[in-house]
């Protein structure tokens, strides 16, 4: 210990310290990325054949906008590193290939079957590490906690998707779609990859278990019978006001007409 303290004013001491610091941070980074890649590797078991088929589909259906090597163009972003989850969401929900250029890709009936979607995902995943398709464990609502899901949902999602998850407006024609009727897998992938105007909720922000809780909450909203009668679209005071000024007013007028139709 004495030797070390004596040498701390040595001309090369600073250099040694710097080298040590670099080694430490570099080593940590290497470990971190390795675990990331390891994660990516464990759940991707795509065969070379899948990747080759995926590339064929990609070139004939996606390359116009995303470039022949998925490097992106003025019409579409690069897909290198977006991962299988992004492809599975965009293609699986029918948003990609896009019906038309616009502020936001619109939902439409899917263009590819499950196998083709998987092949496309395999090809894009082979281009660079990215979020993978979630494991079934995190999609199983029987393991989720709806109360915690409601808490996470109301704090992170309700500002765009509405407290009841029925969607809401964003600026200039963009919008947050309804979450009712969206599959567990697609909800998870959307949180993981942040499609369209949605932010990414990484596993650091919302852990996979919390994502499962959110899905559990949304699925419970779907299956529960509205306790108060017809929910009027769960849109809040606007649909209530509309109802009183239409149905409510018509019923009242009908009765006033009836009451005054006979003299006494």
């Amino acid at each position: 210990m004495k030797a070390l303290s004596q040498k701390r004013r040595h001309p090369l001491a600073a250099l040694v310290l710097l080298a040590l610091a670099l080694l430490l941070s570099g080593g940590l980074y290497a470990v971190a990325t390795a675990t990331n890649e390891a994660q990516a590797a464990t759940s991707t078991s795509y065969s070379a054949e899948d990747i080759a088929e995926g590339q064929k589909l990609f070139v004939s259906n996606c390359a116009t906008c995303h470039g022949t090597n998925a490097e992106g163009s003025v019409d579409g972003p690069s897909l290198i590193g977006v991962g299988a989850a992004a492809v599975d969401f965009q293609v699986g929900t029918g948003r990609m290939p896009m019906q038309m250029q616009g502020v936001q890709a619109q939902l439409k009936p899917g263009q590819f079957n499950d196998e083709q979607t998987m092949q496309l995902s395999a090809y894009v995943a082979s281009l660079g590490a990215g979020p993978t398709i979630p494991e079934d464990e995190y999609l199983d609502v029987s393991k989720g906690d709806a109360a915690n899901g409601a808490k996470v949902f109301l704090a992170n999602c309700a500002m765009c998707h509405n407290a009841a998850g029925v969607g809401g407006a964003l600026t200039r024609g963009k919008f947050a779609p309804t979450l009712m009727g969206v599959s567990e897998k697609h909800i998870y992938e959307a949180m993981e990859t942040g499609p369209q105007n949605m932010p990414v909720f990484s596993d650091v922000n919302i852990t996979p278990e919390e994502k499962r809780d959110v899905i559990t909450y949304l699925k419970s909203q779907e299956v529960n019978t509205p306790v108060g009668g017809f929910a009027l679209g769960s849109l809040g005071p606007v649909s209530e006001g509309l109802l009183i000024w239409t149905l409510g007013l018509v019923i009242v007028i009908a009765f006033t007409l009836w009451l005054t139709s006979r003299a006494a």
Partner: protein
Amino acid sequence: MSHSLQSDYKAKTTTGRIAHYVDQRVGVSGIVKEFGRKIFPDHWSFMFGEVALYSLVILILSGTFLTFFFNPTMVSVTYDGSYVPMKGVDMSGAYASALDISFDVRGGLLMRQIHHWAALMFMMAMTVHMLRVFFTGAFRRPRELNWVVGATLMIVGILAGFTGYSLPDDVLSGNGLRIIDGIFKSIPLIGTYISLFFFGGEFPGSAIISRLYSLHIMVIPAILLLLVAIHMFMVVIHKHTQYPGPGRTENNVVGFPVGPVYAAKAGGFFFIVFGIIALLSATFTINALWNYGPYDPSPVQAGTQPDWYVGFGDGALRLWPGVWPFPWEFEFLGGTWVLSVLLPFALMAGSVIMAMVFWPWIERWVTKDNRVHNVLDRPRNAPFRTGVGVAGIIGYATLMIAASSDLIATHFHVSLNDVAYALRASFLVGPLIGFYITQRICLALQRKDRELVLHGIETGNVVQLPHGEFIEVHKPVDEYRRYALVDFESPAPLPAQPNKKGKVNPIEKIRAGLSKIWFEDRVVAVTPAELEAAHHDHHSDNAVEGSVSASLEK
């Protein structure tokens, strides 16, 4: 009344004896004799005030039930009720008890929904009642003050609704309070102090729910009931207005007495209104507060709107430009002036309210008509006023619709920004277009009425006369119906009048200008002489389609 106190009358039945006993001591028969013979005219459009009154009674009944279970505190508790998605969540006692009312109190959700639907019904009925009074000119002398009482009832009704909306302490109601906080703070110089005073410190503080509760269940209902009492007392003093018709004059009221006809009708109607509200409450969810979660100042949820009657204020805020053509915010006199919040409220929403309250005097000033009016105008016979009313409806409705601009954007697949641009245009231009079209429609309907009176109803029978001419036979309007068609005034523009000093002051010139605009285009009622002439034409079997243009004054 005094004679009944000393009568020696002996009733034959027990009921009669009890009634007589009571009557001798409180003199009810005198009251019944006086009030039971009050005459009310029969028309469906006269019944909306009643709907509002009955809704208020239902509000008080259902509200009393809710006070038994609601806990107006902001002290934090951990929810442990039946609603699974909120289990274990920390929330205010107010929100927890609102959830308990919805899920754990027997009949609680139904009562909550009855209370809320009744509130919407109350405000709607008041609005429709007020529109009826406006369009028929029932606010004219002697009823101007009652119009102001009614307008005040409307404003106090908005306050009642808003304080109630804020009580559950969920994210929706907290967002509404945050806007109120912003409006307070936009008041120059004293705004921050008012906000701190109101919330008992910085928003949201821990006092606001109990304060709003005191206002909502004591102060505001007391004011409402007092105003309702004054409003109805004045109806009794002034007597009810009536539509023009045979035998109806400024000095009588044609209709049925309160007892027994109206007492029975009105009593029954109360239960009908209760039934309608109960039906809505049992069928449609209102304010699903369990969806929103406990209030937390950080999130603002999509689809956050006030109830419809506050919508015009929210819409004004949404429509006011944020930074165009300059940022509506500057530092002055040691404070920040937030005009983008202050002006929409003071100018847009405020002007709508003020124009409504002061309309009777605006109209009287222009027309110089200070006579007593007990016979109503049919809306078409007051084209200018009807046009102004429609313009007001368009302006108000635009603001109200603007409060739902986000839902319009998502449901009609249009851009939120475009919705705002369109509604801004509608607020500025819509009332003018609405006024012009309405006034023209009124004039056209008046001409149609003239046509009907002078030439009768087309029968579709075409007759060939012996000399070969074809004529179409018109059937005269029967006298009973004709009365309503000809009994109206059509004032001519009143030029500027000199004052006592013989001078025409500038304000009088403005008045004369307005009078010219109001009454320049007009259709006069058919006079007996004209009718006689038209009938004469009929008898001579020629010129059946006579020229009406001669009698249309321009």
